[in-house]
């Protein structure tokens, strides 16, 4: 039926759902108590809920709580465990902060972390508390937290506009949207004001005036509306998630995605926030791009930093970001939108002032280029918000670029060259003036301007154009050596000269820019190609390390080092670095490796570090960490460069993994080959040694059976030959077994079986040796099945029995007993003979060690060494002790497990 096929769930969506559920199952749950402003009772509500859970038996811990001296709230703390805060030194004072490491160590089921938007003291692992919470969640701990609407990133400017108080501590909307539950704590504005007047709302002294402005009824009502609406949006998101979950039709529109452009204006941040809000409302993904034109490239470093900061803000708000270098903004935006299938474009409105009537606004340009794309213009806010300068996205200040002075000098030099060129051309042209027409002189000047433009760029070209016009006027246009012009037509010449100079300068500079961009791109592609080629040829870890170090140093002008884990997952430096350009902090690297997230410079984790740590994630598992310290740190902030670096990291990771598997395959091949060799050697040895022994045993026995019978002495000799041959055979077996076990290649034939059975067969095998001894066997009937290799355990028992018979006089008593001891089965073979030499109890298990120094008893001391090897390969233990009553006792253990159920049958009569 067509209808049913329409409603059939999309397999990709279902797969995504399963993956999401898997990830969710391990992650802790985040519940946010969300309110319109301080004082609505979020902390109170959170505590009340936590206490209820504690009463139900949940393991609840208070990580950090701000009671603000409110007695009602403090009374609620009750007996809930409070994590002691950590003292962090900051500017000579100790500030108490939430102790993340203690919380992770304590690992409660639920932790209360108040004030999600709080900024940590510099030097903490994360700059923001919500990042601490992320780590708690990742560790599988449930978290309750609180948040005010004004701290929500995308609403930050709106709230600022309403209250004229701009807060600096913000939480990305993604955190709010990804929270598992949001509880809206809401009271009417009037009631909040009453509470404020009653002194129930904490107002910091230093902010009292601001608070007076803040807590106005109008403000509070507006904030309340914002909080309610934001919660409603989120609930709608929940509904959508629920619908996907329950496979109720598809509500996703594929072509709903947004694109916004980041520019250099102060309003850029506003546009980004607007786009984020819009994307949230449309429930669509969104992209933010920055088109770097030549003009923008010439901006001072601080402003460029700001643009990149805005881009980072967009990323925090959930956008996919990119930097594109192109001189035509509109065209590149449209190309990007088309290639990423983005149907809506969000742009800031152009300044209303226009230089020329034919100049089009960027909106009009875009509309012309792509009539099919929806355009959304975000209004400008001049004035009021302008002075509240856009905050830096990083709470910790960045260092200003050091290269600006250098660049200024370069610039001056260019203008100097332009001026010198004009002077030189004038000097050369002077003697020519007599022979050539003035129009040719003009041509020489224009050529100069073009050359200057090509060599020194647009500014220098403009200067050259102006100077050329002046020089031509002064030296060549009659009256010469005067700026006066006799013939009016020269005015036209000047104008054309100037225009041609400026236009060619502009064009060539544009070309230069394009060429440079192309060169950059080619450089990136080239370096990628190079590292990929080099890495693909690497067959050893050291080669990978060397190639990646060199490639990164070359491409990023950065010091790089690889840190690789050992078997326990502990990182260590693999790159050999003699210089001190890169000081790696193993702790941060280990964090990045364990969490699989980048850390250090430019990331959310310990951004104060100078070094960026990128985990090398390969398809199967993380292979190490790449530490990079750029000489020019701005480089690593540019999304393109970061992406390139990430690509490098991925390539290195894959190379490491490939090398790893090459080694694994080689090892496997070598061990397979050596095992084959060993097995054939052992088989040959076994055959070649046993055949003559068989002949010896058989022929000696035949002698005793011949008719007529031999004399008693002859029969005794024949029997002695037989016995010795059999002993020889045991020795060969022991040697071969030892060789097999020592090689570590013996494969245990583990079966669930009763001890009784192997005791029976061992006693049967050792019957001949035990003829002269008294045997006492006690194996309880109700022992559980144990998993072992019957042949090998039989060998252990036979060796122990043989040992007991060998070192005790005839008539001694040998006791064999089995019993349960804790979580293992313990088997003992004891005798009442002379016992072991004191202090020699452990040495008997060494190869070729025997009870006595002098070889009074025959046999090579291999038997007990084999016993130990066998028992240990079964994860058991074997010890030798002297019994209190005299005699030696050998005890070995075998771990008990869960034996499989045997099909029980009813106990009925026969047949």
């Amino acid at each position: 039926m067509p209808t049913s096929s329409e409603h059939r769930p999309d397999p990709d969506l279902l797969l995504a759902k399963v993956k999401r559920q898997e990830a969710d199952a391990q992650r802790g749950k985040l519940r946010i108590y969300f309110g319109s402003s301080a004082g609505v009772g979020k902390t109170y509500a959170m505590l009340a809920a936590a206490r209820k859970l504690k009463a139900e038996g949940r393991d609840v811990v208070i990580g950090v709580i701000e009671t603000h001296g409110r007695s009602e709230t403090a009374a609620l703390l009750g007996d809930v465990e409070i994590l002691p805060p950590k003292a962090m030194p900051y500017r000579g004072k100790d500030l108490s902060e939430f102790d993340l490491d203690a919380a992770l160590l304590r690992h409660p089921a639920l932790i209360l972390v108040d004030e999600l938007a709080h900024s940590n003291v510099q030097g903490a692992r994360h700059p923001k508390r919500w990042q601490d919470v992320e780590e708690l969640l990742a560790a599988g701990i449930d978290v309750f937290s609180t948040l005010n609407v004004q701290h929500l990133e995308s609403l930050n400017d709106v709230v600022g506009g309403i209250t004229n108080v701009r807060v600096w501590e913000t939480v990305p909307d993604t955190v709010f949207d990804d929270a598992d539950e949001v509880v809206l704590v809401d009271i009417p504005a009037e009631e909040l004001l009453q509470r404020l007047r009653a002194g129930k709302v904490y107002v910091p002294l230093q902010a009292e005036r601001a608070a007076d402005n803040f807590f106005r009824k109008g403000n509070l009502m507006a904030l309340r509306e914002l909080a309610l609406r934001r919660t409603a949006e989120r609930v709608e998101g929940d509904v959508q998630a629920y619908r996907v979950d329950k496979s109720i039709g598809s509500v996703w529109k594929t072509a709903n995605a947004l694109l916004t452009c980041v520019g250099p204006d102060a309003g850029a941040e506003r546009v980004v926030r607007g786009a984020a809000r819009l994307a949230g409302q449309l429930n669509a993904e969104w992209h933010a791009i920055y088109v770097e034109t030549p003009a923008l490239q010439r901006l001072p470093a601080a402003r460029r930093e700001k643009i990149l900061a805005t881009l980072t803000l967009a990323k925090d708000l959930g956008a996919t970001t990119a930097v594109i270098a192109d001189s035509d903004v509109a065209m590149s935006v449209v190309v990007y939108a088309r290639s990423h299938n983005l149907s809506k474009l969000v742009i800031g409105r152009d300044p209303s002032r226009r230089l020329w009537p034919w100049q089009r606004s960027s909106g009009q340009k875009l509309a012309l280029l792509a009539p099919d794309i929806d355009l959304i213009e975000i209004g400008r806010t001049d004035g009021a918000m302008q002075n509240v300068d856009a905050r830096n996205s990083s709470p910790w200040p960045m260092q200003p670029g050091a290269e600006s002075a250098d660049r200024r000098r370069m610039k001056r030099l260019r203008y100097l060259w332009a001026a010198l060129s004009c002077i030189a051309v004038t000097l050369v042209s002077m003697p020519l003036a007599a022979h050539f027409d003035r129009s040719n002189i003009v041509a020489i000047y224009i050529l100069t301007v073009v050359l200057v433009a090509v060599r020194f760029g647009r500014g220098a070209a403009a200067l050259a154009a102006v100077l050329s016009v002046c020089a031509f006027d002064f030296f060549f246009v009659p009256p010469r050596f005067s700026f006066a012009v006799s013939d009016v037509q020269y005015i036209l010449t000047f104008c054309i000269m100037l225009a041609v100079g400026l236009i060619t300068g502009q064009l060539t500079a544009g070309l230069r820019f394009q060429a440079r961009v192309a060169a950059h791109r080619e450089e990136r592609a080239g370096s990628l190609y190079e590292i990929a080629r080099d890495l693909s040829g690497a067959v050893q870890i050291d080669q990978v390390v060397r190639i990646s170090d060199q490639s990164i140093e070359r491409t990023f002008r950065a010091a790089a080092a690889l840190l690789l884990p050992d078997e326990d997952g502990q990182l260590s430096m693999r790159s050999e670095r003699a210089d001190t350009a890169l000081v790696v902090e193993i702790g941060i690297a280990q964090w990045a490796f364990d969490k699989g997230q980048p850390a250090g410079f430019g990331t959310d984790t310990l951004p104060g570090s100078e070094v960026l740590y990128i985990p090398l994630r390969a398809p199967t598992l993380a292979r190490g960490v790449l530490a990079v310290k750029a000489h020019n740190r701005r480089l690593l902030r540019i999304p393109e460069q970061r992406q390139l670096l990430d690509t490098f990291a991925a390539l290195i990771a894959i190379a490491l993994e490939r090398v790893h598997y090459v080694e694994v395959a080689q090892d496997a091949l070598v061990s397979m080959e050596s095992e084959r060799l060993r097995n054939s050697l052992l088989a040959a040895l076994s055959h070649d040694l046993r055949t003559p022994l068989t002949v010896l045993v058989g022929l000696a026995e035949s002698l005793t059976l011949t008719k007529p019978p031999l004399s008693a002495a002859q029969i005794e000799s024949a029997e002695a030959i037989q016995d010795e041959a059999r002993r020889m055979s045991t020795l060969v077996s022991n040697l071969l077994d030892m060789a097999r076990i020592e090689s570590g290649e013996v494969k245990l034939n583990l079966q669930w079986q009763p001890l009784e059975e192997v005791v029976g067969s061992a006693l049967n095998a050792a019957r001949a040796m035990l003829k002269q001894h008294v045997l006492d066997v006690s194996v309880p009937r109700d022992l559980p099945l144990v998993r072992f290799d019957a042949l090998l355990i039989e060998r252990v028992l036979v060796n122990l029995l043989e040992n007991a018979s060998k070192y005790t006089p005839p008539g001694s008593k040998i006791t064999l007993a089995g019993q349960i001891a804790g979580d293992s089965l313990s088997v003992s073979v004891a005798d009442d003979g002379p016992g072991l030499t004191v202090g020699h109890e452990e040495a008997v298990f060494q190869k070729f060690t025997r009870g006595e120094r002098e070889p009074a008893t025959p046999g090579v001391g291999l038997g007990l060494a084999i016993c130990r090897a066998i028992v240990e390969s079964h994860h058991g233990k074997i010890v030798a002790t002297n019994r209190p009553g005299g005699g030696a006792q050998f005890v070995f253990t075998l771990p008990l497990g869960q034996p499989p159920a045997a099909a029980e049958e009813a106990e009925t009569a026969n047949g």
Partner: protein
Amino acid sequence: MGEPQPVAILVEDERQIRRFVRTALEAEGWIVHETDTLRQGLIDAGTRKPELIILDLGLPDGDGMEFLRDLRGWSNVPVIVLSARVGEADKIEALDAGADDYLTKPFGVGELLARVRAASRRRRDTGMGLGSVFEFGDVKVDLSLRTVHKGSVAIHLTPIEYRMLNLLIANCGKVLTHRQILREVWGPSHTEDGHYVRVYMGHLRQKLENDPAQPKHILTETAVGYRLVQSATD
């Protein structure tokens, strides 16, 4: 007895082993044909109408398993396998392929003759059919009445235990692998559940042996299987 002398074929490449095995068998009244290749052994088995074949598994001209499978296609003559190999897997494979018994090198003449006697007795018995009463030690099994007595005490066996005892009696003296017992008692779908056999064999020993930890009749062939021995001297 006046009966014609039974014929045995000995397939073994080591001359000295052939020598003492032949001596021992001839002393028991066998006519022994020796060969040192599997090819010739197979031809002899077809032409000389043997009542016993003694086969060394480690012959240079081929795999003893192939010999067994080929032979079992057209003959059920008892085969005793001689093995010097390290693993037990070869023995199990040989038994599953149709060998009746095995001897691990080095072996004595006494062990060899005991196995030979057991094999020829079994051959005789299958010719005549089992008697209705079977005895080992002080245990008496009446196969027609399906009763088991130990001394004068009637022993109650569960159906599985009884089936297993019956199987052991039918193959008295012969080694039965775990797999064979599982297939016969539990059916072909249970051939991997080796612990079933061990558990029930334990029950059977508890009921029938005087000292289950030192059994005299229901013997364990470690890692291979079980063997019922009628008298302790066997």
